[in-house]
C-alpha cells in the first residue's frame, strides 16, 4: 500500500463546508455582525438574513417558515423534540415508541426519560434494518405520547417507511418525530406528505458548518422549550442566533435540494459499484442494510474473522478515511448497537466498515479502495486466529 493523496469516504460522519456556503458565511462574518434582536439597522439586517434562511429551509421541506426553528445541531433538535414532547404531554401519558437503531441523539434522551419514569418501547428491526409499521401500530397505547423513528440510518443507510408510520401516528393521534439528519439532501422530504409533526436536521451533514441544525415543528404542535432564554425563535429557543451558520445552512440545504436527483444518481452508482466489487473480490464479506431502501451514498460491509478498528487503521495509513459503526461512538469499545439489532453476531459486528460517498467521490476512489481493501483484509486475516481456525475446522 503506497502513501497517496487522502481520500475522504466518511461523508456520513461530516462533510466539508462547500465553497458557496463558505462565501455566504464569510460575507456575514465580515459585514453583518448585528444581533438579530437589535433594533437598529445592523440588527435588522441580521434578522432579515435569518428570516430569509427560514423561508429557504421551509421551502426545502414543504413547510411554512413559521414551522422551522433553528438549533445548534442535530442532537439539540432530537433532544428538544423528544424531551420537549415528553414534558408537554406528560399529563396525557408517559409512553414513547422508538426503534433499536436510532442515533444516540435519540436513544440517550429516551433513556434519560426512562430514568424519569417514562416508559420506552424499543421496536425491533428486521435483518435489513427496517421497522415494520405494523409493529409501531401495535405498540401504540392510550398513553403513548410520541413515536420517534429515524428517516434514514446513519450506519447502514436503511431508509424507513416514514410516510406509512406517519399515517398511522396521525390516525392514532400520536405525535410523530423523525430524525432526518442523514436523509436531508439525500431523499426528497415533504413534511405534509410524510405526516410528520417534528423533524430534525443538522448542517454539517449537508456541506454546511458544524454547530447548526433545525427542528421542524408542525403548526399547532406544542412542545416544551429546551433552551429557555431570550425572545429568539418566537420565544421557543433562546440564544443569539448563529446568523452566519444559519444562512450557510439554508444555502447548503437549498443547493442540496436542487442537486438532489443528480447527486443521488451519481452516488448510488459509486455505492453499487463498491458493493458489487467487494462481494465479487473479497470472500466472507456481507453487506449490511437494505439492498434498495438505502441512502444513495452508504455502503456498510462486514468482513468475517477480522476486527473493524484494524481495518480502519490500515485504511487510514493508506490514505482512506472511513468509519466503522457510527463516528460518534468510535470512542467506545462495544460493537455498534445497529449491527447487533440487525442480528449480526458480536464478532462479525466488530468487523464492519462504513464507506459513505460525497461530492468529491469518484469511481477511481472505489476501484483503488477495493484493491487496497483486498490486501488489508488478507493481511489481517493472515494474522487472525479466527481465520486460521476457520481454515482448519470450518465454521463451528
Amino acid at each position, binding site marked *: 500500500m503506497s502513501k497517496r493523496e487522502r481520500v475522504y469516504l466518511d461523508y456520513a460522519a461530516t462533510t466539508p463546508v462547500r465553497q458557496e456556503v463558505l462565501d455566504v458565511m464569510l460575507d456575514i462574518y465580515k459585514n453583518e455582525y448585528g444581533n438579530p434582536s437589535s433594533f437598529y439597522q445592523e440588527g435588522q439586517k441580521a434578522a432579515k438574513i435569518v428570516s430569509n434562511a427560514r423561508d429557504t429551509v421551509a421551502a426545502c421541506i414543504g413547510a411554512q417558515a413559521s414551522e422551522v426553528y433553528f438549533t445548534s445541531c442535530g442532537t439539540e433538535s432530537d433532544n428538544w423534540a423528544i424531551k420537549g414532547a415528553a414534558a408537554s404531554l406528560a399529563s396525557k401519558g408517559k409512553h414513547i415508541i422508538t426503534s433499536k437503531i436510532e442515533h444516540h441523539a435519540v436513544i440517550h434522551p429516551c433513556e434519560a426519560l426512562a430514568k424519569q419514569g417514562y416508559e420506552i418501547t424499543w421496536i425491533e428491526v428486521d435483518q435489513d434494518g427496517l421497522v415494520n409499521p405494523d409493529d409501531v401500530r401495535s405498540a401504540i397505547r392510550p398513553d403513548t405520547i410520541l413515536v420517534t423513528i429515524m428517516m434514514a440510518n446513519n450506519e447502514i443507510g436503511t431508509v424507513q417507511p416514514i410516510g406509512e408510520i406517519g399515517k398511522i401516528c396521525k390516525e392514532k393521534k400520536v405525535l410523530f418525530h423523525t430524525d432526518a439528519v442523514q436523509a436531508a439532501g439525500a431523499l426528497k422530504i415533504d413534511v405534509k406528505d410524510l405526516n410528520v409533526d417534528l423533524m430534525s436536521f443538522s448542517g454539517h451533514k449537508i456541506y454546511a458548518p458544524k454547530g447548526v441544525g433545525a427542528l421542524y415543528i408542525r403548526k399547532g404542535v406544542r412542545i416544551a422549550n429546551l433552551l429557555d432564554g431570550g425572545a429568539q425563535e418566537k420565544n421557543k429557543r433562546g440564544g443569539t442566533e448563529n446568523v452566519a451558520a444559519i444562512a450557510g445552512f439554508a444555502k447548503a440545504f437549498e443547493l442540496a435540494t436542487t442537486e438532489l436527483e443528480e447527486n443521488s444518481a451519481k452516488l448510488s452508482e459509486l455505492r453499487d459499484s463498491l458493493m458489487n466489487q467487494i462481494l465479487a473480490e473479497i470472500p466472507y464479506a456481507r453487506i449490511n442494510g437494505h439492498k434498495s431502501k438505502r441512502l444513495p451514498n452508504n455502503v456498510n460491509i462486514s468482513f468475517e474473522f477480522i476486527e473493524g*478498528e484494524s481495518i480502519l*487503521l490500515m485504511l487510514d495509513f493508506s490514505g482512506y478515511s472511513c468509519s466503522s459503526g457510527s463516528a460518534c461512538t468510535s470512542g467506545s469499545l462495544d460493537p455498534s448497537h445497529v449491527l447487533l439489532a440487525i442480528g449480526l453476531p*458480536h*464478532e462479525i459486528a466488530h468487523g464492519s466498515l462504513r464507506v459513505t460517498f460525497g461530492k468529491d467521490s469518484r469511481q477511481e476512489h472505489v476501484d483503488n479502495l477495493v484493491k487496497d481493501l483486498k490486501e488489508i483484509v488478507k493481511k489481517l486475516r493472515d*494474522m487472525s*486466529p479466527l481465520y*486460521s481456525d476457520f481454515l482448519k475446522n470450518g465454521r463451528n
Partner: protein
Amino acid sequence: MQYSDKVMDHFMNPRNVGEIENASASGTVGNAKCGDIMKVDLKIENNVILDAKFKTFGCGSAIATSSMATEMIIGKTVDEALRLTNKAVADALDGLPPIKMHCSLLAEQAVKAAIKEYYEKNGLLNDENKALFDMLEEDPH
C-alpha cells in the same frame, strides 16, 4: 485515537506473526464477542523462550501489543517472561490511549497462559507459582 509511532510501526509491521509447529506451549485468551483474541505459541528449551509467534484478532493496539510482547519475551527465561507486565509492554510502545490499556492486558495474559500450559505439561506448576496465573481468571473487559 492517537497511537504513537511505535504502536503504528508494530501494527503495520507486526513482528512474529504466525504459528509454531510443535510449539512447546500455546495460550489463547480473549473472545470474539469482546472484539479481541490472542493466541501465542512458544518454543522453549532449557527454560529459555527461543521463539514466540502470535495470531491476534483485534484492534490496532491488540495487534501492536501482541507484536511487542512476543519481541520482549524472545530470549528471556520463562521466569523472566512471567514477570512481563502489560504496563511494560505499553511503555515499550511509548504508551497507549487510556481507553486501549486493556488490550495490553490481553498480551500479558496470553503469554502467561502459554507459560502456564508449559508448566502444566512439564509438571512445574506448584503451590508456589500457581498464584502467578491468577490473573488469567480475570476478565479484562
